[in-house]
Structure formats: structure tokens, C-alpha cells
């Protein structure tokens, strides 16, 4: 199955009109060929999922995951090939799409579930369950515009999940709501899984895929790279990601890169407690984050800033380090130097992160910067239930 997209707005609209024209007169769209400015958003994708399977769809942004979900839900037509879908599909994609801000929560539940394909009688039967799950009894007769975004998302999720479809498409929506509600959603999904519901789930979070899905599917730039057991696919994906790391870091000498000075960040890497280089730092383990630099001369007041963002969710910044804030002076000699940040234990949860590092002279003059160094944090124990790793010891004492 193929799907193409156009990256030029005006041309895209024109193609849209042409496609509609051909469709209406029943002529062939010659949709298997690319026109100017078009590219394959999905190319030669072929797979089959049986009832009750749960599939985790992974891949970086723009890999075609959402497009695939939209084709399965019948929203947009494939450009070549066939998609066969058996059973009612419910999207857990736009939570609360169609919510009217003026109307009350109660009214919106009825409209929303009707849009998702339920009859009025069915909605009435399920209404109490929906409200119970969303924990919004108190706000039921308030207009939805007075809801917080988390509350609206909770209501949207409850509406969608209680339509009890045969096939559930989940697109990154589990990132909404507070942690407790999120946990509740996962429990509900596990319950539905037991009822033989088929899932197709998009997530950047390896842990949520690993915990829910039996089958993994890895998309990269519209191509199906792998389809199989979740752990294998996840390993493949992570191996690809770490390849990406090296390329990005080495871009300093390979691809043309903006040059700020003769001072150069040569490499970024993680080390374990024994100073051995590791590809994947581990949650809760000691180690170093080391930036290796090549200096053209002696500097005695370098300022290094490191920002780490969560690449899986909304790019939320997780950590920020600045040696000036820490009152630590960094000076380097001419030639290769290593600047290390030692952590007694790594607080980051397993997942994909992006690191940005900038080095300044006297806090003003930018010497060099690496915009995005991607790395994957792994964990050898279940860490999903916490937001970050807390170093701890258990003690028992008697008074």
C-alpha cells in the first residue's frame, strides 16, 4: 500500500482539486506515480494484523505513523494498494474533537460518542461508566470551556474508550492527563486487550509500547523497516537511533557545519562508573557525560551549557546544566580536552532524549554548539511507574 504527500501548499491544493475531478468522473488518478513536489509518505507497506493483536508503531517524526493510522481509519484513501479492515474502528487520536466549549460536559459526551458511531440508546447505557471513569461528576453540568485541558482530555479519553470498538487506534494520546489518570488509562487498555480488542498504537515511549504491544512495527521515512516481536523491533529501532547519534556528532568534520571558531566539540558520549564508553546510559546507575573538545588555544574561563529534553513527548526540557551556575571554573589547554559531568546515579527514565550542548567563552562568545545529540536511556529494572529515578535505601528500625 502506498500513500504520497506534497510538500508545496499551492501545488498540493491544486492536486487536491485535480484528484477530486478525476474521482468524480471515475477516471484513473494515475496515483501510483509521483507528480512534482510529491514524495511517498508511505511506500510499499504491507502487513496484516489479526484480531486481538496489539501493534506498536514506532518511528521518528514524519515516518508516516499517523498517516498509516488515518488510512486504516478510512479518513484518507491510499494511492495504491488495498486496505481491508474488519470491525469497527475507533480512533483515540483527537480526544474531544468536536467538543463544543459552550456546551456542558454531559451534552458533549452525547455528541462525541455519537460522532464515534454509537446510537443514542447505547450512549445512555454507557453514560454512567464514562463519567465514572473520567471522574468528572462534579463538573458534568459545567461548560467544557471551563475545564482544564487535562479534564477535557480525560472526558475525551473516556468517551473514546467506552465505545468499545473492535479496533482501537491510539496516537500519542496517552501523554495527556496526570500521571494517575494515565496509569488508569493503561489499566483500561489492558482490560480491553483481554476482551480481544485489536490495538494499533503510536508512541515514542519505548516503555509503553513494550508493556502493551505484542507486535512492533518500525516505520522509517515511509518504509516498513521491521515487523515482528516488540522487543526485536525495539532493538532494531534503538540500534538505528544510536547510529544516528554518531552521525550527528561526527557532523562537525563531515557535513558542512556552521563554524563559530577554531574551537570544536569533537564528541559527546556516556561513560559508566569504570570510565568505559557506553552507548546506552542506564537509569539509576552512576556514570559520566563527557564532552570531548579540540581547542585551538588555552582558555581559562569556559562556560558550558547542557540541555537535555525528552524527545518522546513534547520536547519538554528535563535537565539543564551550566557550570557557571554551579560555580565551577573550566579551563582547557590547547589540543584535546575532556569535560565530564559526573553523576552518582542517572535520574533519567528510560526513553529517547535530545541533548544540546553549547560552549561559550566568558559566557558571551559562542565557541561551538551541538544542536541535537540523541541518546537512549535504558533500564535494567522496571522504572516506568516513576517520573524520574530517586536514589534510595530501605531501612527498618524499632523504636
Amino acid at each position: 500500500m502506498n500513500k504520497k504527500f506534497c510538500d508545496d501548499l499551492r501545488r498540493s491544493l491544486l492536486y487536491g482539486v485535480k484528484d477530486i475531478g478525476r474521482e468524480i468522473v471515475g477516471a484513473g488518478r494515475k496515483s501510483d506515480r509521483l507528480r512534482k513536489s510529491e514524495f511517498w509518505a508511505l511506500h510499499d507497506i504491507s502487513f496484516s494484523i489479526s484480531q486481538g493483536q496489539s501493534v506498536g508503531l514506532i518511528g521518528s517524526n514524519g515516518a508516516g505513523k499517523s498517516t498509516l493510522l488515518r488510512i486504516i481509519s478510512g479518513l484518507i484513501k491510499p494511492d495504491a494498494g488495498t486496505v481491508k479492515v474488519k470491525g469497527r474502528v475507533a480512533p483515540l487520536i483527537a480526544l474531544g474533537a468536536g467538543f463544543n466549549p459552550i456546551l456542558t460536559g454531559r451534552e458533549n459526551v452525547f455528541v462525541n460518542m455519537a460522532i464515534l458511531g454509537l446510537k443514542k440508546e447505547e450512549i445512555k447505557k454507557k453514560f454512567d461508566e464514562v463519567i465514572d471513569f473520567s471522574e468528572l461528576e462534579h463538573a458534568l453540568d459545567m461548560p467544557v470551556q471551563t475545564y482544564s485541558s487535562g479534564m477535557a482530555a480525560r472526558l475525551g479519553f473516556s468517551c473514546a474508550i467506552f465505545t468499545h470498538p473492535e479496533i482501537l487506534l491510539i496516537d500519542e494520546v496517552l501523554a495527556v492527563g496526570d500521571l494517575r489518570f494515565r496509569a488508569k488509562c493503561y489499566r483500561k487498555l489492558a482490560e480491553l486487550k483481554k476482551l480481544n480488542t485489536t490495538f494499533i498504537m503510536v508512541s515514542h515511549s519505548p516503555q509503553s509500547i513494550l508493556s502493551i504491544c505484542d507486535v512492533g512495527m518500525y516505520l522509517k521515512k515511509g518504509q516498513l523497516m521491521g515487523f515482528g516481536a516488540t522487543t526485536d523491533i525495539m532493538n532494531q529501532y534503538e540500534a538505528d537511533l544510536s547510529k544516528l547519534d554518531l552521525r550527528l556528532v561526527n557532523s562537525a568534520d563531515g557535513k558542512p557545519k556552521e563554524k563559530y571558531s577554531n574551537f570544536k566539540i569533537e564528541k559527546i558520549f556516556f561513560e559508566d562508573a569504570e570510565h568505559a564508553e557506553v552507548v546506552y546510559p542506564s537509569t539509576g546507575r552512576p556514570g559520566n557525560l563527557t564532552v570531548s573538545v579540540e581547542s585551538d588555544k588555552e582558555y581559562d574561563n569556559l562556560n558550558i551549557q547542557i540541555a537535555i529534553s525528552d524527545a518522546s513527548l513534547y520536547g519538554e526540557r528535563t535537565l539543564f546544566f551550566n557550570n557557571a551556575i554551579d560555580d565551577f571554573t573550566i579551563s582547557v589547554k590547547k589540543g584535546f580536552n575532556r569535560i565530564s559531568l559526573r553523576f552518582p546515579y542517572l535520574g533519567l527514565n528510560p526513553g529517547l532524549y535530545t541533548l544540546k550542548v553549547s560552549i561559550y567563552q566568558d559566557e558571551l562568545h559562542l565557541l561551538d554548539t551541538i544542536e541535537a545529540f540523541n541518546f537512549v536511556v535504558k533500564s535494567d529494572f522496571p522504572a516506568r511507574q516513576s517520573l524520574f529515578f530517586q536514589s534510595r535505601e530501605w531501612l527498618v528500625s524499632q523504636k
Partner: protein
Amino acid sequence: MNTMEEVVYTSKSELKHPLKLIRNMFSDLLSCRDLTMSLLMRDINAKYRQSVLGYLWACLPALVTALTFTLANRSKTITFEATDIPYPAFVIFSMVIWQTFVESINGPVQTIADSKVMLAKINFKREALIIAKFLEVWFSFFIKAIMLVAVFIYFNIHVHWTIILAPIALSMLILLGILIGLFLSPFSLLYKDISYGLSIFINFFLFVTPVIFPKPTTGTFATIVNWNPITHVVEAIRKLVLGPEGFDFTPFFVTSGVTLCLVFIAWLTFRLAMPFAIERVTS
């Protein structure tokens, strides 16, 4: 669970299987009743809840236009030929009909624009949006009709028994509007030009339709007005209410027949075009 329906999506035009397409169209029409009613209730509630004057807004445009033209007519700024009923009553009555027509054209375009997010994310029976608008136009007409009754009583206007047939003619007018909107709505998702141009188009037609003036009988203008299909439908409604003596219904019947055929074609177009429109505008 064994009764699960299998749906097949391909790149081929659905027109390749016309019988299946038509069967699907009508089965969707039947199965979207609940959704239609939900959407209708939502739209009506949302429309009037956030306003003080509420339902009065259905009547105000007709009243204000009527007032403007009545004053203009009195002061001889613009003069019209004599009407069968007092001019203010004529304009209010005609403006109500016209307003209903305008709402029917705008309805589909507006509802598609308002539901953009929903359309982009959820696959539902999109016909429901349009039918809900059709019913909403009727609902808003009923409010206006209450005002009309008051106006008719005030001016002591007698209605003819044929008024019971007027709803049929009004349905034709609404369908005519809906079908124009239906044709335009997928394209209006793609190009803003449609909604920009629509208001100009509507204004133009207001002046070639006998709404604020009685139907002219002579001159080039009369010919233009006579070729305008909307004229015949508007006239038919008015004559059915006020007395159809000596009125030729033939053009109205022709327009109605064409309208009914075109409604089906517009519906078909809408159905085939929407996936393409959705694909292009949203992510």
C-alpha cells in the same frame, strides 16, 4: 463478533462500483439519524446559549433589512412598483424566505469549516453534518414564521388555503441552497476563495431575485430576473401563501426537478471529494 463488517479501501474511484456506492450512500443516510439529531441539538444549543437575544437573532436580519428598504421606499430614495400586500409586510416576508435560502447555502460550507478538526481525525458519516444543517435551517425558519404570523395579523393580510403546500416549495428552496453549499464545501476546505466569494455571489443574487422588489414585468432586468431559477421558487412560495391565481407554476416545477437531480449529484460529489479535501488540509 462474527458479524463484523469488512471494509476495503483502495485507490480506485468508488464510482467503479456504482450500485454498491449508491447502496452505501442510502444505508449511511439511514444509519446516521442519531448522529444527525445530536449534531442538530449541539448546534442549536451552542448557537443561542451564548447570546442574550437568543432566538430573536433568527428574525433580526429580516426586520432590519425590511426597515431599511421601507424607509428608503417612503422617502422615495428608491421606488418600487406597487406590491400586492403593504410594502413593509412584503419585504419582511420576502426577506425571511431569502434569509432561509442564504442559510441553506452557507450551512454546508460553514459546518464543514467548523468541523475541520473532527473531520480530519474521525471517520464518521459526514452526511450527518449536512442533514443537521438542513434541519437547523428549518428550525430557524419556524422561529421566523412566528414573527411572520404577527406581521400578517398586524397588516391584516389574508392567506390562501394553498399555504399548506408552501412547505413543499420552501423545501425546494432550502434544497437548492443546500445543493450549492454541498457542491462547494469540499472545495472550501481547500481554497478560502470559496467562502470569500460566496458572500459576493449571494449579494448579487439578492438583487436579481424579487425579494426587496416585486417581480418586474418589462425590460432587460425582467429577463435577467426571469432567468434566475431562484426567482421562480421564491415567487412560488409567495403565491402559495397569498393566492396563486394566474401564477404559472411551470418554471417552478422545472427548477424543482432539476434541483432534486442535482441534490443527488451534489451528495455524490461531496462523498467522493471529502477524503481528498481532508487529506490536503490537515495533518
